């Protein structure tokens, strides 16, 4: 199964950088599904899931950004108390470490979507599927 490609960008922490990133994507008609910024003083890392990661990666690179792609999992999470617990507990019990995670709610949402970067994708996928957690496909993310 094709993994979800997250786009990661290295950006300096100075005015206008976010604007440049979003303008570049919007000019290429790439839609951002979810985004998070990890900041570390004078620089930060923007991570995002977009509808067309290949095109997003290409235009950002052409515009001189330091950019990479990372395989992540997108799992559906009940938008109720305990929704997150069910997922991370399953991973924890299976010995899978979560490097980072961020969530978003879709318009169709009775469910939220959780983006996870883990140290062992295959193991995470098996553990979550075993518990009946639904893992979104690339096509589903594209179609949101």
């Amino acid at each position, binding site marked *: 199964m094709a993994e979800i490609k997250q786009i*990661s960008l290295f950006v*300096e922490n100075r005015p206008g950088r976010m604007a440049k990133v979003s303008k570049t994507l919007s000019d290429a008609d790439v839609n951002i599904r979810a985004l998070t910024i990890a900041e*570390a003083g004078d620089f930060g890392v923007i991570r995002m899931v977009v509808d067309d990661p290949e095109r997003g990666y290409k235009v950002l690179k052409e515009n*001189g*950004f*330091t*950019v990479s792609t990372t395989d992540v999992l997108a799992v559906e999470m009940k938008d109720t108390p305990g929704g997150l617990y069910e997922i991370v507990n399953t991973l924890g019990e299976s010995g899978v470490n979560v490097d*980072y995670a961020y969530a978003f709610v879709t318009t169709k949402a009775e469910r939220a979507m959780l983006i996870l970067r883990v140290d062992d994708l295959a193991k995470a996928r098996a553990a979550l599927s075993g518990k009946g957690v639904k893992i979104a496909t690339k096509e589903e993310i594209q179609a949101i």
Partner: protein
Amino acid sequence: MSGYWDPHMERMPLKELRTLQEDRLKSIVRYVYDHSAFYRQRFKSAGVEPGDIKSLSDVVKLPFTRKTDLRDNYPTGMFSLPRSEVVRYHVSSGTTGKPTVVGYTKGDIEAWTESLARALTSIGLGRDDVVQVGYGYGLFTGGLGLHYGAERIGAAVLPTSTGSTERQIELMQDLGSTAIACTPSYFLHMIEVAEKMGVSIRNDTQLKTGIFGAEPWSLETRKRIEDATGINAYDIYGTSEISGPLFTECREKNGIHVWGDMFLTEVLDPKTGEPVEDGERGELVFTTLHKFAMPLIRYKIGDLSVMESEPCECGRTHPRIMRILGRTDDMLIIRGINVFPSQVESVLMNIPEVGDHWEIIVDRKGPLDIMTVRVELTESGFSDKIADLMSLKKKISKELKGVLNIAADVDLVESGTIPRSMGKAKRVTDNRKV
């Protein structure tokens, strides 16, 4: 075939070479005493006369000449000949003070050209080569110097000068440049621009040789350039005061051959002024033995290096100076410790996650000097985990400290944000108000 341009001179037995140097030293000392009011006065104040110089070792009796002497005697007060004998001027940029003017007789240009003809031959260039001269043409000595030298050996010169980088790369392809001469930082920029144009210097050009200088550069940078392009990168040395670019390494890449028939080279302890042993670091001092419009006696050129007097594997007997360790002018004093930008370069270029372009910013906060080293992150060095980036910062800091003995802040910046230079790279911004 890599032969010699002037086999008799380049392979002259050491003893014979020393005799030649001794004769030429005596003549040039007599010559400046007779022709230059400046040197006559300088010799008198030092209590030395031409007759006191009987052997090479007597050179230590002669007074030094410094860059400030050239500035104080601007424009032509250091000349030993009237203007009618001068066929060319070159003028230094004067970024740190008044500019300095150098004049050349026809014979001076001839000797300069011969010096480079020997050098270019020693790195294997000849009639079949196309030499792209990407040094600035004009008042700066780089462009015209290499131009004449490359023409002399029968190569075809492509005088692109600096700038118009995309055009340089197109011409490099279209005319089949086999060698390029420019600053190493400009060549790194060319590699980057070529990549953006979809041109691989390794696969899409005939380039085999680079002649890089006019700014100090490290062995680590040489390795990066050679690994990225497959060319052989050679160091070239010389400054306008002693004519311009004059000397290069040979194919052995084991020191720069400084032609002994043209120059007497000394390496002195900067503190005591005493000669240091072969292999020990010191300040370079040149006496021009065969230059007549503006000869210089014991000129403190301001560069630190190490000398090797043993003949080279290539068969050339003339002394070699090892890679320039730094210019005394470029030295920063940070919290009382001497820091050469070239040391910073050699640390950074050894770290694969660091890009080819970098800069040093020095500030003073209260009583404390703060040195910040700004480096571009390469694509392969980029991890989207903050912890990885923080540990990279720490690693760079630690390696800098290991070499410099002072702590430096490290800033990771986006690639393409540090200014690229066409000529000599400006690596240091010193914001301290002294």
